Each structure stands twice: as structure tokens, then as C-alpha cells.
């Protein structure tokens, strides 16, 4: 990844845009940041760590260079190429490698449909699994998923001796080392068994409640499609309007583009304009408005 140096120059760039006229109004943060400019330079400066590789100070070179001839220029200071960063690897963010990631990769490649299960993305620390006891795969606070297999595999690997004593009574004489693959397979098969149990449980529950008189007027799929359609209907109207506005503004731009020359500050402009979230934000508020409207109409 490229080192981000522009973040600390946001004040300079904004004042430039104001002067040139790209921005018409001062942003709300402008005065505050102007009064307390960012002193911390977040950009990572390369250091020439390896002493052997640093060039000798040219001034020393000046003395040592015995073969200097009159009329020849001496190099007395570093030029830009000398100052340029030589070791790109230093400023690069180091690659973090974990066994867990490899296991996750293997598991989800083998079971791609596990991705289609809903997953809670809210987490406080991200290391909740550390508080759990992985001597068993099922957890009270965590649903069964690929992560369970990963953590269980690691647990089996680290606690292999206990596991072997419990499960491999036949091979008591030898003490075979459990490999990563064996641990993973063991965890995987436990996972399969628990998944089967879950599936059977839901099927039996449905059958049992039907026996007791429950009625399921629509399948899960039908229910989902129906609920989705409500939003799609609303969205279709809004999208139509938005498209019309978009087309109109595009036409206007095309007609005025011939008159205007390209602006110099175009490259910096993208940073200031939030291109991703405006539409979504507007859309969600529109949906809420449209829903309220349709409710009003219904009540009338």
C-alpha cells in the first residue's frame, strides 16, 4: 500500500481550494483545524538503517578524493536521487501471518455455502473466542460456524496429549503426534455431526408443531421475497426520480462543458467529495419517508 502522506496536508489543500474557488464555503472544521494544525505527521519516513549501505558523507569524500582535477565539480551534498528512499520494504506494512487465517481459508474454500449463513458482525474486542472453552465445539455465546472449527482445531493441536489419551485407547503404547490435518479433520467431523443435529432438530420441530396444529402459510423463501418486494416497490419509484435528476444534470454538464476549461484542482477534488455514502444515506431516509406516506394513504 502506498504511504498516505496527504492526510496531514488537508488544511493546505482546502485553503488552496477556497482561494481558487473550487470550494465556495468554508468547511465547518476549517477554523478549528487552522487554530490547531495537525502536528503529527502520519507519513512514515524511511530511515537508512543499514549503516554499510549509507553513502559516505560527500564532504569526507572531498578530502579523500586525491585524484581531483581542477575544473571538475565535487559532490558536496546529497541530491534528490540520493535522498530518495532506497529500501521500500521498510515502509511497507509487514504482512501478518496467522495459522487461523490459513485454516479459515481452507475451511471456507471447502464449505463455500457456510458463507451464506447469517452472521453477527458486531463485536466489542474481536477476541471473544479467547474467553470460551474450546474443549467442546458448541458454545453458549457463539453460534456454530467455521470459526468454531478453527478454534477447535487449534485447541486440539495444543491439547493433543489429553485428546489422544481419551480417544485413542488402542494406541496407548505409542504416543503419535497429532498433525494439523488430523486435528482439523477431527474438528471438521464434529462440526458435521453438530450441523446434522441442528438440521434434524429444525425439521423435527416443524413436523412436531404441525402435528400439534401449527400452520405454515408460506415458506421461508416466500416470506423473504414478499418482505423484500415491499422495499423494492418503494425503491422503484425513488430510483425513477433519481435517474431523471441524474440525467438532467448530466445533460446540463454536457452543454456547459464546452464553455468551461478543465480545472487545475481536479485531482484533489475527489478526496473532498464523499462519493460513496450520500446516495445510500438519502435513499434510506427517502424509504422511511415513502413508507410513512404510504401508511398515511392507506389510513385515508
Amino acid at each position, binding site marked *: 500500500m502506498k504511504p498516505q502522506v496527504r492526510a496531514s496536508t488537508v488544511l493546505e489543500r482546502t485553503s488552496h481550494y477556497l482561494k481558487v474557488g473550487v470550494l465556495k464555503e468554508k468547511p465547518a472544521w476549517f477554523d478549528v483545524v487552522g487554530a490547531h494544525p495537525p502536528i503529527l505527521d502520519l507519513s512514515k519516513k524511511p530511515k537508512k538503517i543499514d549503516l554499510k549501505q549509507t553513502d559516505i558523507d560527500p564532504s569526507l569524500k572531498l578530502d579523500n578524493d586525491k585524484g581531483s582535477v581542477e575544473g571538475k565539480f565535487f559532490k558536496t551534498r546529497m541530491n534528490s536521487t540520493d535522498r530518495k528512499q532506497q529500501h521500500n520494504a521498510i515502509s511497507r506494512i509487514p504482512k501478518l501471518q496467522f495459522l487461523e487465517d490459513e485454516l479459515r481459508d481452507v475451511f471456507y474454500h471447502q464449505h463455500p455455502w457456510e458463507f451464506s449463513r447469517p452472521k453477527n458482525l458486531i463485536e466489542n474486542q474481536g477476541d471473544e473466542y479467547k474467553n470460551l472453552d474450546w474443549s467442546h465445539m458448541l458454545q453458549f455465546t457463539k453460534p456454530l460456524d467455521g470459526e468454531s472449527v478453527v478454534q477447535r482445531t487449534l485447541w486440539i493441536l495444543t491439547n493433543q496429549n489429553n485428546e489422544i489419551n481419551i480417544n485413542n485407547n488402542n494406541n496407548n503404547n505409542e504416543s503419535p503426534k497429532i498433525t494439523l490435518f488430523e486435528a482439523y479433520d477431527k474438528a471438521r467431523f464434529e462440526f458435521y455431526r453438530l450441523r*446434522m443435529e441442528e438440521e434434524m432438530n429444525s425439521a423435527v420441530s416443524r413436523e412436531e408443531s404441525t402435528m400439534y396444529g401449527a400452520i405454515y402459510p408460506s415458506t421461508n423463501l416466500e416470506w423473504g421475497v414478499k418482505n423484500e418486494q415491499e422495499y423494492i416497490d418503494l425503491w422503484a419509484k425513488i430510483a425513477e426520480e433519481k435517474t431523471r435528476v441524474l440525467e438532467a444534470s448530466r445533460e446540463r454538464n454536457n452543454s456547459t462543458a464546452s464553455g468551461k476549461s478543465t480545472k487545475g484542482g481536479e485531482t484533489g477534488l475527489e478526496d473532498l467529495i464523499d462519493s460513496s455514502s450520500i446516495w445510500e444515506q438519502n435513499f434510506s431516509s427517502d424509504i422511511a419517508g415513502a413508507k410513512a406516506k404510504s401508511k398515511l394513504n392507506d389510513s385515508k
Partner: protein
Amino acid sequence: MFRISNSSRRSIGIQSSKLNFGLSQRFISFRLPNIQSLETVKSQQSDFEGLFSNNSVNELWFKRGQSLVDGLNQSLEHSNVNSSGTEVPNNLTDLISSTIQKPEYYGIYCYSSLLYNLQFFVENLRPSETTIHKVDQADPNALLANPVFEFVNQPQDEDLKRWIIDSFGSVIEFRTLLLNSAKGIKGDGITWLVAESNNSQSTINNNFQGGKASREPQYVNLKVINTYNTGFVDDSIRSGQVNRLRQQKSARLAALRSKQLERQEKENNEKDSTTTTTTTTESTTTSEEKTIISEIEEIDEKIDELTLGSTEDADLNTLYNDKKLLPLLAIDSSPRNYLLDYGVFGKQNYLDNVWECIDWDVVAKRTPTRTQAIIGSLYM
């Protein structure tokens, strides 16, 4: 058709006595059968090795069984089955199949089916020395325990084993399916291993052209099914509930229509003939006619010929597909079975132990001859 082991056939026999009070009456009452393994548990004050404590055997079989038998005898007495002159079947299966579709005999059906299920379950159990879990109260951690992969008890009979492997893939797959189905039941219920015939019962009944041999059901597949509460395993006697309702409805509609037609004809005849009719009778006939018409319209509204029907209807129509099912093995996973010995968290432990206690000899005895017809699979 249905094989009970010799001991049970003797024991669940009937006590019929003819009383000579002018009218000949037959009183039928049932007795709790003697099951050898349970009797020894009772007499020796010992535990049912590997599954139940002495106390729970007493509660589950001797007390509960006796109360079911008493209940059955009482409800037989209270209903006028005995005195009505109709022959009361002297075994439970016939009693169940003759009462299952008659709401007035609901009590008899419930008691007899519960008794049948209970007896079927305890008959295929035997004490076992290999236990996976101790017969003890399970702590809450048992809910999260890892699944058990190791088991000892397996069907010894080669034919039965072959059939299980052909139907389910392997013995361990069968064990997983059976125990998972049992574990999924929330209330009272029984998981069965059944042999399924290739032809439905109605096909067998209607097949007059073939000889006697073709009317016997041929068993091709083994399956695992659940029944809940007082459910009974045979599909052929409980199927077609929705269709029966439909038929009743259409029969009623047809009757109403013909009634209306008759009335109209009658009126026409009356008008043709020059008999004098008072206005009062006319008004009554028209009001009666109105009620009939409104009823017809009401039923017509309910019968919508254009829609295909909901998935629920389709489900109910195909749920019991009228196939002859022969039970081979029952596992009762009702809470009463594990609460006493294993506690609220002990269902899985109980089920693992039940597997170890399955008496495969009894199951093999119940197994019908397998029909390995390749053509038979076409009818599936």
C-alpha cells in the same frame, strides 16, 4: 403380518369370559405383559444395567404400564363396545386400527396406542455392559458436549445389517439419523425404524388380478420416522385425512343439490296439477329452499376450483402416502424416560445409552423378508 415375541403374545392375551345371563356378552380386558428382563429387575431389586435405575423401571413400566392398562380397560368398559355385540379385537394393533378413525373411541385409541408403543419400546431393550455415559444426573455442560463417535452395539444379523447399510449408507449413519431424530422431539414422541412396502395399502387391496402372493406387501426400504404423543406408526390406517374431508364435503354438496332438484320437480308437479295450496305451506317451502341454496353457495364459495391449493394441502396429501409401514425398532425419547435418571440436561446421554441397549435379536426377529426387486424400485 406383525410378529410379537412369544412371551408377549401369551401375556397380552385376553381375559374373555362368557356370562350366562340370557344374553351372551364378551368382556375383554387387557393385562400388562410380562417382560423377562424387566421382571428380573423388579424381583432382584437391581438396576436395568446401562440404561435405567430400578426406580425408573418401576415408574416407566410397572406403574405407567399398569395405569395405561387400567385406563384402556376402563374406557373399553365405559364405551358401549362390549355390549354392542360387535367383536372387540383381542390384540392392540387391531384395536388401534379399528378405533383410529372413530372420534367416539378416542380414549380407547389413545390408551391402546400408548400401551403398544411402550411395550414395543421396552421389548427391544436389553441390559448392556458397555455404557457410554454413566447412569447419572447430567450437569449443564452435557448440553455442549462433543458428539460421541464410538459405539459398540451393532446389529449382528447379517441380513439386517446389509439392509441397514443399503438403506442408510452405513451403521453409523443410521445411528446418527436415528438418534438425531429422537433428540429433535421436544415433547412426547417415539422414533421408529420401519420397513416400508413398495406398494401402497390401497394398491394392495385393489389388486384383485394377482394371486394371494401379490397382495402381501413387499418390503423394500428401511426408514426412520417419528410419531408424536399417541401417534401410531402405520401410514396405511392414518392416511387420507384431507381427502376424506373433501369427499365428505362433496357428498354433502351433491345431497343438497339433489334435494333442491327434487323440490323443484315436486313444485312443478304441484303447479301442473290443480290442487289448491295454501299460502302458508308455500312460504315454508320457499324459506327451506332459501336455506338450502345459501348453504350450497357457502360450500361453493369454499371450493375454489381455480386455485391449486396451498403447499399445506399438498403436504397433508402426500404426508401419509398410504404405504404399509412395519415397525422394527422404537426409541422413546419422551422426557419421562430420561428425567428421572439423567436429569433435564441428559437427553443425549440417555439416547447414547439407549443405542447400546438395543436388542438387535428382537429387531431381527421383527424384520420381514426383504424384497430386493429391482423393478420394485420403479413403483417408489
